[in-house]
């Protein structure tokens, strides 16, 4: 490789010196082009090979596994093609309560929520069509988003009602969206506070950054200690509010909240550092103009700061969303998915199946997770992310 490099260097040097001779120059040019193509492949191919063989190849095998049943036989294992049986089991079969949850008739409040969401979806679709800038792609993604959100809302009101029980799909969605909501708000708030000219703000910045560095397993144990109502550090507080007998791990919502708290504690710093850097890199002139015009703090935030950090926000929320769907360590260690399967995420369900040697089931759950992430990501990217970027 070194030899090739030297040669190119030498030949290119003579080439630049002989520009007056067109034919020779042309030949040099084509030589440089060929060297370029080689260099291009040298740069890109290793990564393509790694991703092809270690991400795409397993993806295809996994798809195949999800259509088959797996069992051990003498001297190895046997795969049997079973078609859609694994998926059927999740959606309508024996694993339905675990995956989708117990579907009850929505309460009146549930109906109300669903009708409001459906109405909003229809209105936004109608508004989009009436605006007259129709494009096939735009219509497709809006329709897709409407269907996905509508289905999600329907599942939500039916499983979260008084008689229903959410399955792993809904629980994962709750972890993702409630988690991101609080992470973003807290991260933004802290970032805004630390951009002020306060003495000692470097200390706060460094401290706020720390939870990101801690292994999720450690965080899970940490929150197990902290949510212990008799021996944990906050036992005194629990006794004061009369909850000393309450066990977070044995109450479905307690377990879920504990998992979310751990997740929020860990990932707020991520939002914090990126938003902090974004706030610091804002241009200063609009602020000065606004101060001269006598704008108040809220107006400055709403009309100057927010538009400037919106593109960054859209991107980090997308990143967090993609990562948050993979949540597995915290529920696994903190609650072991319990009580029952009340705090189990999709990734954890897949792991549990794998541990029970149901490889086909495991693969089908992970494919459902992949489909969910992809749908959520597509809708978010095409509607919110793109709109924000265009406004820029």
């Amino acid at each position, binding site marked *: 490789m070194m030899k090739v490099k030297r040669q190119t260097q030498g030949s290119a040097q003579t080439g630049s010196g002989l520009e007056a001779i067109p034919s020779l120059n042309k030949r040099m040019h084509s030589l440089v082009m060929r060297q370029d193509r080689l260099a291009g492949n040298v740069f890109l191919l290793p990564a393509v090979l790694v991703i092809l063989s270690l*991400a795409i190849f397993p993806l295809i095998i996994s798809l195949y596994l999800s259509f088959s049943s797996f069992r051990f036989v003498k001297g190895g294992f046997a795969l049997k093609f079973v078609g859609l049986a694994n998926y059927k089991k999740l959606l309508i079969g024996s694993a339905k309560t675990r995956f989708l949850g117990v579907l009850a008739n929505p309460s009146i409040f549930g109906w109300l929520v669903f009708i409001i969401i459906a109405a909003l979806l229809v209105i936004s679709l109608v508004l989009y069509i009436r605006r007259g800038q129709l494009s096939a792609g735009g219509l497709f993604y809006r329709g897709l988003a409407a269907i996905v959100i509508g289905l999600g809302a329907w599942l939500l009101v039916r499983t979260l009602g008084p008689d229903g029980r959410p399955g792993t799909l809904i629980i994962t969605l709750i972890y993702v969206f409630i988690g991101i909501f609080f992470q973003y708000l807290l991260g933004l708030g802290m970032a805004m506070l630390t951009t002020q000219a306060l003495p000692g703000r470097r200390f706060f910045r460094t401290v706020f950054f720390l939870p990101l560095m801690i292994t999720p397993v450690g965080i899970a144990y940490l929150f197990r200690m902290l949510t212990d109502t008799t021996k944990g550090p906050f036992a005194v507080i629990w006794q004061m509010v009369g909850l000393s007998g309450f066990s977070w791990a044995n109450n479905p919502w307690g377990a879920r909240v504990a998992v979310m708290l751990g997740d929020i504690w860990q990932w707020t710093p991520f939002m914090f550092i*990126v938003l902090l850097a974004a706030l610091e890199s804002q241009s200063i002139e609009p602020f000065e103009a606004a101060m001269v015009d006598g704008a108040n703090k809220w107006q400055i935030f709403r009309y100057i700061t927010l538009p400037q950090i919106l593109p960054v926000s859209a991107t980090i929320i997308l990143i967090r969303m993609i990562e948050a769907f993979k949540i597995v360590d915290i529920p696994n260690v903190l609650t072991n998915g319990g009580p029952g399967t009340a705090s189990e995420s999709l*990734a954890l369900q897949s792991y549990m199946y794998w541990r029970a040697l149901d490889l086909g089931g495991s693969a089908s759950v992970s494919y459902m997770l992949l489909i969910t992430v992809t749908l959520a990501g597509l809708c978010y990217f095409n509607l919110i992310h793109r709109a924000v970027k265009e406004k820029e």
Partner: protein
Amino acid sequence: MKKPFRRKSIFSPSPAAMVLSYLVLGIWAFVVLFPLYWYVVTSIKLPIQVIEGPFYIPFVDFQPSLHAWRYIFTDLRNDTLRPYFNTVVISLISSILALLIGMAAAYGLLRFNYRPRLVAILMFIGCIVLVIVAISFGMPWKLALIAGIVLFIILLQTIGRRFKRSLGNNDIAFWMISTRILPPVVIVIPMYILFQRVGLLDTKTALIITYLAVSLPIVVWLMRDYFSSIPIELEESATVDGASRYRIFLSIVLPLSAPGLVATFLLILVFNWNEYLLALFLTSSRAQTLPLTVAAQNATRGPQWWYMSVLILIMIIPVIAMAIVLERYIARGLLVGAIKE
């Protein structure tokens, strides 16, 4: 960065706002620091002091003891040091490899034109699927592989030539980055089977390879954006002076992107250092990493909080030290990635 004076005039808060800010910041600092403090306190408690209820301050509430530290470092000795060594080796090597391969790809995607033909890609995937199906129906895998390659080449030379539709750099970049969407559980079962077949299960190599694949998209994505913030004129003038592409990359582009490289490296290092799920699937004893050792402290006798705290502390101290030193780099490197697309 030379704005402190102007910054002060606009961003210095009124006294009341200042008190309020400190209050809120103080509360959040407590929320962040108290758990860390609790690790430290728990690690110097005797089991009885943990079980009997909350004690907060050493020497006042309880008499601290180093028994847990002694147990982890002398009694367990190799069972602590081996996972520690594994974690260091695995996370360092996989992060370095991912950085090397990823930054080359990121640069290539930015400065070269690639035109892979759509048909070729589709046929390649089709052949892989055929090979897998053939193997699962009992065909010997070597034969199936060769047949697949032959079929692919024949198809490419015949039908493949007719269709000229090709993809561009952005499509490749999007494809690479979008593999980040794949939840690890999707790819880990085939990896498990693969590593089992080639006898790499429960080895460091298996984890290094897996972590490399998982962190590569992050590197490509962050470094592509970082490289694009380097003015192309510099590279053009170097080309005129006769430098090769490799030389330009090594002696112009890389030195200029040091902050981005540091940030990206740290980020993937921390991810790989803390990774749990893949290690759980792919290792059992020899190549076990620290997160698994921590998780394993939840013994049949109930969680051993004191040992666990020690393990978590020795695990987070090096990362936190690095984070404190390089915090600014990380923020800047991440920001570039988030602003550009």
